[in-house]
């Protein structure tokens, strides 16, 4: 794996401290940061727009008090969340006590964002083609960003991101991981490389679209393994072929030996499959995984056959070979030497191959964002974070992400999983930490909110939200309504507040 030399620190000249700032880090003021070698301004806590703010230039040695005589207008927002940057690094507090007159005391409001350091995506890729072995490392831009998880039915699963790639590895690894996650979550196509060197495969993943594997766009996901296909379609082949082989990378099925064939009184044909027999009519490992027939590496299906048994087989024996997606098929008849010879496929068999294809669903990539609501995020909701967890557990509080239904994992904390396609486009952002910024909403009754120690004084009626500049969306694709009573433990009749 190639490693790019660590990029240089840059020296910030915004103030006399002249911090050396490494990539991905902020200077002492927390206002300027090094992002990929560029000095960028963060301004995380800007709360007043430049419009009505007056800046007075600093005049050294000027004892006069004519502040108003020399007013300039700011050309950018003015940072008032004093605590924001206040501090030298290392020891100083975040702004706990702030500067707004609230009920006669000095108070500051601090804006927190839904920053997920613990987050990643689970990707399901509908394909029978080999894209990598379980535990293979998944790379983006040469950096490890995740690994291959299990094979599921007709699909391969990837786990990408997670805190150990985001902040546990090199800086570049973190940045590349964050970038890949961000693009996947925002429905962009991302090219991944699975495995190393001689067994590397390229997969382009885009939420809701078919994967592109080693340059080829996948079309269909198989209806089932070869054995399942035999079970499903045996009856349709009954009088049209003497033998059917459904070629599949996982389990290749053989009609005459399969339980389904036996029950239909299909006689033995003397066929020999070059693979590891599992149970009758089911074979593992007929070939290497690949992008050929049924997710194997073969282009000619006859290569998985040994010689027919002359004591059982007969000249003129009709043989259908078909892949588990129906995309490939071939019809053969045995000649006098009991060798299969290609022949024109009868219509009935053609139709059965088409039926297999028709029963295969379009291959798509699904991207599920998964993240945990940390203590500080939860503290933005209530003074006592664990109460929010309990409230979610007790179905008093409903969790959604950008209005989309979120699955909440059992157990401690609030770890959620949500389909990015259900969320509004461009829902995700990032911070240079690196970590993803994602929307997360907790919906609950006012009475319950009060009971769990919510910040009651922060509640505003929705009518008070400025309409200008708000992005209005139709209801989500899956018609999920976070406010629906069905989401909650309490009954519809119990509608107090």
């Amino acid at each position: 794996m190639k490693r790019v030399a660590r990029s240089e620190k840059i020296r910030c000249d915004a103030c006399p401290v002249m911090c050396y700032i490494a990539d991905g880090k902020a200077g002492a003021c927390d206002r300027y940061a090094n992002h990929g070698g560029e000095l960028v301004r963060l301004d995380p806590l800007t709360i007043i727009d430049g419009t009505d703010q007056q800046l007075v230039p600093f005049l050294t040695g000027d004892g006069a008090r004519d502040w108003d005589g020399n007013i300039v207008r700011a050309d950018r927002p003015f940072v008032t969340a004093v605590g924001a940057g206040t501090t030298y690094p290392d020891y100083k507090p975040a702004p706990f006590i702030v500067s707004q007159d609230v009920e006669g005391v000095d108070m500051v409001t601090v804006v927190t964002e839904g920053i997920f350091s613990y987050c990643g995506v689970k990707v399901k890729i509908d394909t029978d083609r080999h894209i990598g072995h379980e535990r293979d490392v998944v790379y983006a831009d040469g950096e490890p960003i995740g690994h291959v998880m299990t094979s599921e039915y007709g699909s391969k699963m990837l786990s990408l991101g997670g805190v150990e790639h985001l902040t546990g590895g090199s800086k570049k690894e973190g940045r590349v991981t964050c970038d890949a996650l961000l693009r996947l979550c925002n429905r962009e196509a991302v090219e991944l490389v699975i495995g190393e060197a001689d067994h590397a495969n390229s997969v382009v993943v885009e939420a809701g679209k078919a994967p592109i594997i080693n340059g080829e766009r996948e079309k269909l996901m198989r209806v089932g393994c070869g054995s399942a296909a035999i079970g499903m379609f045996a009856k349709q082949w009954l009088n049209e072929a003497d033998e059917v082989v459904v070629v599949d990378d996982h389990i290749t099925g053989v009609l005459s030996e399969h339980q389904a064939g036996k029950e239909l009184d299909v006689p033995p044909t003397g066929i020999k499959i070059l693979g590891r027999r599992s149970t009758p009519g089911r074979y593992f490992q007929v070939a290497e995984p690949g992008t050929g027939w049924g997710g194997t590496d073969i282009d000619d299906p006859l290569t998985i056959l040994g010689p027919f048994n002359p004591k059982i087989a007969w000249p003129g024996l009709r043989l259908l070979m078909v892949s588990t997606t129906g995309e490939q098929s071939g019809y053969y008849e045995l000649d006098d030497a009991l060798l299969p010879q290609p022949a024109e496929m009868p219509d009935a068999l053609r139709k059965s191959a088409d039926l297999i294809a028709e029963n295969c669903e379009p291959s798509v990539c699904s991207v599920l964002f998964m993240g945990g609501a940390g203590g500080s995020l939860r503290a933005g909701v209530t003074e006592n974070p664990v109460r929010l967890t309990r409230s979610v557990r007790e179905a008093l509080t409903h969790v959604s992400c950008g209005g989309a239904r979120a699955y909440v994992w059992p157990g401690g904390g609030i770890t959620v999983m949500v389909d990015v396609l259900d969320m509004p486009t461009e829902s995700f952002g990032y911070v240079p930490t690196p970590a993803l910024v994602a929307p997360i909403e907790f919906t609950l009754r006012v009475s319950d909110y009060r009971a769990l120690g919510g910040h009651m004084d922060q509640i505003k009626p929705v009518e008070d939200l400025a309409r200008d500049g708000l992005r209005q969306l139709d209801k989500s694709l899956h018609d999920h309504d976070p406010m629906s009573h069905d989401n909650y433990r309490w009954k519809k009749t119990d509608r107090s507040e």
Partner: protein
Amino acid sequence: MTAQASLMPCGTRLHLHHGPIDLVIGADGDRGAAFAAARDRFATVLQELVAELPDLRAEMLADTSRPDGQIARRMDAATRDVMHDGFITRMAAVAGSVADTILQVMTGAAELTRAYVNNGGDIAIHLAPGQSYATAMASPTGGDLGRITIRHGDAIRGIATSGRHGRSHSLGIADSVTVLARTAAQADVAATLIANAVDLPGHAGIRRRPASDLSDDSDLGSLPVVVGCDPLSEAEVAAALACGLDRAQSFVDRKLIAGAALFLQGDSRMTGCRHFSSAQRRVELA
């Protein structure tokens, strides 16, 4: 960029900003004179500190020589009192020392009944007879943790808050520790040390990384700073707070501070209670 001064929209408070320093200043009395003095003094503050920055970032030891600058000397004095209580550098007192310095020139230049210099939560206060100062303790997300009222007769002219949230680094897990002391510099150092003491060494739910990994110029060097803390049981929270309270009580006993309020995961401990009114309520869910 040079130091910036601006009146805030309310027209009665001054904002001074230079690099990492932000001050919000209020004054009742001859406000114009006080603000002008603050502004003038502030012009060179950052430059003075930067001149001695490498020394100020080094660990404070018995044989550490005293610095030259006025503000640096305040930092030195506040830190020397507690150098044997835990790892400390003089930077722990920088925010409070700047606040004390600016407040001092304001009260020297103008008749003021009441004034404060708030350096990001480290606050230096001036109170004429009969005056009082009220402030609120807020959680990192704006939640109300209670109020602090300081009267002229109290031997308190400094308030400081330290803790783990935001982007600052702490050796402990306290969400926040607010300290009241005679000067902002003393409160500043004490809050840092008390927040560092709120801890459960070796606990698996607390994640730490070397400070130098997180910030290249960190004065904490390779010391492990807390980067994450899982929800703790009530007993664990109580144990961690007890460690911090021990240190706070020792500072109170030695008359270094007047009081402290420690917050961790919804629980709190206080010493010098009469100054604090807590907003913490322990409401159990049914």
